[in-house]
């Protein structure tokens, strides 16, 4: 039986109090939101914070504020509520889809938006029990010296496995980070870092408090996720895409993000740029799909064959862009993701 290690527990009622606690504890403490990622990791001794600071009792973190200029989402919003909220449609659809495809219904009733954004990176050599990891002399990410996926690498290659991260990047999201000394707003895309250990630039004394989205009037977005089963599994490849089309259906602006193909979600900037001013015809989509697949560099440390995961990148970009131009791809979505999204 795997028990949690011992920890001190704090449950502040306000963001200010939480920031004070983190200021004192720094890396000794970890914020606890839904617990669906951190608690399993603690049971396997992958993460062993001396203190857990619950964010569940801070009311302001559960708020949704919607006005003409955009949306402000509290970091502790529950994924099942985001998935079911009809306000997160049209421009914001990719977010609702990503939230609805995380893990299982029970986990989506617990897991939070902020928690999924900050999800620990994953690897076949890391997400194992303490005894299993000990038997291979541990790995670079925790307690060891060798990256078993790429033994020559000085960098940890654990995979970014967040669903909402790529979706929010496609929507141009920013996040608000609060600490005792002040607060800052950064593009979500600038918060992630392509390193399996230092995958997120949240400082230990900062709380990810809000996700900020500008109004996406005129945009359409979608999220495609690859996993073995229609439930439970983390993504092993994902594509989030958003486009703004002009009246004559040419692309005014586009963003394509490839998830779970590196230590962070990757922006397929060239692929998105290649669409500018064009209509989403077969040739434009094919070119964008080829360019996007070029940046995906999956390694052999998740489920499924890595070369196949790379090939799926181009396929998923194709389906996503076809869906955004108005094609009916529900059958394809159901066959690949075993999931319909109405």
């Amino acid at each position, binding site marked *: *039986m*795997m*028990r*949690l*290690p*011992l*920890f001190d*527990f704090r*449950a502040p009622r306000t963001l200010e109090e939480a920031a004070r606690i983190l200021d004192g504890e720094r890396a000794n403490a970890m914020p*606890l939101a*839904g*617990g*669906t990622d951190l*608690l*399993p990791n603690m*049971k*396997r001794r992958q993460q062993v914070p001396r203190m*857990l600071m*619950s964010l*569940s009792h801070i009311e302001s973190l559960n708020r949704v504020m919607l006005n003409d200029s955009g949306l402000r989402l509290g970091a502790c919003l529950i994924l*099942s509520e985001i998935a079911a909220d009809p306000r997160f449609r049209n421009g914001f659809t990719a977010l609702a889809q990503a939230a609805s495809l995380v*893990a*299982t*219904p*029970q*986990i989506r*009733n*617990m897991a939070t938006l902020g928690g999924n954004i900050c999800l620990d990176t994953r690897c076949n050599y890391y997400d194992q029990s303490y005894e299993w990891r000990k038997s291979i002399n541990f790995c670079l990410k925790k307690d060891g010296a060798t990256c078993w996926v790429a033994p020559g690498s000085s960098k940890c290659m654990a995979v970014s496995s967040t669903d909402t991260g790529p979706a929010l990047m496609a929507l141009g999201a920013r996040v608000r980070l609060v600490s005792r000394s002040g607060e800052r707003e950064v593009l979500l895309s600038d918060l992630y870092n392509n390193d399996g250990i230092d995958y997120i630039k949240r400082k230990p004394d900062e709380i990810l408090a809000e996700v900020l989205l500008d109004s996406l009037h005129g945009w359409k977005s979608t999220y495609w996720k690859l996993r073995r089963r*229609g*439930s*439970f599994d983390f993504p092993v490849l994902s594509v989030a895409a958003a486009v703004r089309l002009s009246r004559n259906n040419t692309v005014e602006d586009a963003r394509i993000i490839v998830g779970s193909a590196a230590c962070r979600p990757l922006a397929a900037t060239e692929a998105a740029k290649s669409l500018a001013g064009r209509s989403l015809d077969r040739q434009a989509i094919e070119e964008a799909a080829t360019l996007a697949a070029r940046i995906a560099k999956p390694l052999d440390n998740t489920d499924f064959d890595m070369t196949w995961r790379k090939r799926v990148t181009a396929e998923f970009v194709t389906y996503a862009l076809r869906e955004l131009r108005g094609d009916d791809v529900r059958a394809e979505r159901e066959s690949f993701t075993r999931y319909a999204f109405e």
Partner: protein
Amino acid sequence: MTTLPIESQKTSQIRFTLNGEETDVSFAPYKTLLEVLREDLGHTGTKHGCELGECGACAILLDGKPVLSCLVLALECGGKQVLTVEGLGENGHLHPLQDAFADLGAAQCGYCTPAILVTVKALLDQNPRPTRDQIREAISGNLCRCTGYLQIFEAVETAVLKITEQDSSAT
């Protein structure tokens, strides 16, 4: 690390509502709700599976919503409403879902059953006449290695009919 005697580890207390009854419990602060239910309260109906959120066997209803009790800190449950399989029947009678699961062979080894029963109860509270797809989606976080799920879907549909009949004869 020295191991303290179990009783002196019980340094945390909460009061919550367990299956409709106000309950006080003392427990070691690192324990999950699953561990407190089974070890400190003797409610062993909720099953202990993978401990990592990968099987669904420990699902209970927390304030009416299905969650995994192996990933909830007991420390976070003060003031909450918890429903486990022990609280499903009323006045000594099985819940219609339990009857249907027993009658139709929807429980074989039975290990996944308590979690599926409470998860489906939460579905029926929200949606009294779910379609097969809605049932499938609701229990897509509950692994069952015996039945192949078909008997489970059939038992839920049978229970839905029975509950509808009971309700219409009551009015």
